[in-house]
């Protein structure tokens, strides 16, 4: 019987870490989300308003976008609409992360194709569960 030989090392393509675009004008929210998700092995791109979020989404092609509603220049609902209208970003999942707890905001978010909705303050269990619900673990 021929002993099994060690196979020569093959260079397997390394799987890149999933990238999350955090779009929020509140520094605290960004820090909280990053703190929770860094432990899960994600990488981040940050945008401070909706217009910057559109630019970063097109250039970084993130795996997921966490989007605040109340942002300067372009709010989260308008940003979601623009992301969906652009073929380059239309398939990137969006989770709305916001303080807006009114019925209209929920309805607008889902009507703009958001995958889910998280009410601030961010709870780590909810954020992790919903992130892993839309991108590979």
């Amino acid at each position, binding site marked *: 019987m021929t002993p099994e030989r060690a196979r020569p090392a093959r260079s397997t393509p390394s799987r890149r870490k*999933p990238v999350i675009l955090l779009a929020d004008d509140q520094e605290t929210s960004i820090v909280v989300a990053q703190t929770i998700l860094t432990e899960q092995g994600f990488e981040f791109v940050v945008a401070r308003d909706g217009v910057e979020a559109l630019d970063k989404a097109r250039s970084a*092609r*993130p*795996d997921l976008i966490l989007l605040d509603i109340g942002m300067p220049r372009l709010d989260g609902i308008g940003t979601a*609409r623009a992301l969906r*209208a652009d073929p380059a970003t*239309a*398939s*990137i*999942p969006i989770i709305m992360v916001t303080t807006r*707890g*009114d*019925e209209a905001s*929920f*309805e607008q978010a*889902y*009507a*703009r*194709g*958001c*995958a*889910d*909705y998280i*009410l601030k*303050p961010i*709870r780590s*269990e*909810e954020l992790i*569960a*919903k*992130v*892993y*619900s*839309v*991108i*590979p*673990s």
Partner: protein
Amino acid sequence: MTRSFVLPGEVRAGAGSAVLTTILGSGVAVCLAACDRRVGGMAHFVLPDGPTARYGGGALGWGRPAIEALATAMLEHGVRLSVLDAKVFGGAQIAQAGVPTGLPVGSPVGERNVRTAIEELEWLGIPVSTRDTGGSFGRKVVFEIHTGRAMVSEVRRAAS
């Protein structure tokens, strides 16, 4: 007639002419009603049960505690669990097709939320008369406490 929007992690119950509404993605709404008593309520939770986890200051974001709190509210309104009727909605998986990594999506929290609801209601002995769960779209639920009727509509994607 009062109309109240039930947020994720909230449980509301009452008697008489009142309407409870909510909007669901992966979260689940459980509605309980005793129509002949005009008593009912809704629990909207966002996570399946976990062994020790808590949601914010309470546990109502989790399926099992939320449904138990709703059942307790029914008991406090003088209604026995054996006369209750349950409706279960939500638990969607709305991630868009073509996730950029090309890999399968992760563990769908919506599906686990629905399973938690069904198991908990079964454990409590409350039959589920109506169920509209899963799919890839948001839902709007309008629940009339006094009739026990629930209207569910898809939150349609806007054209642009």
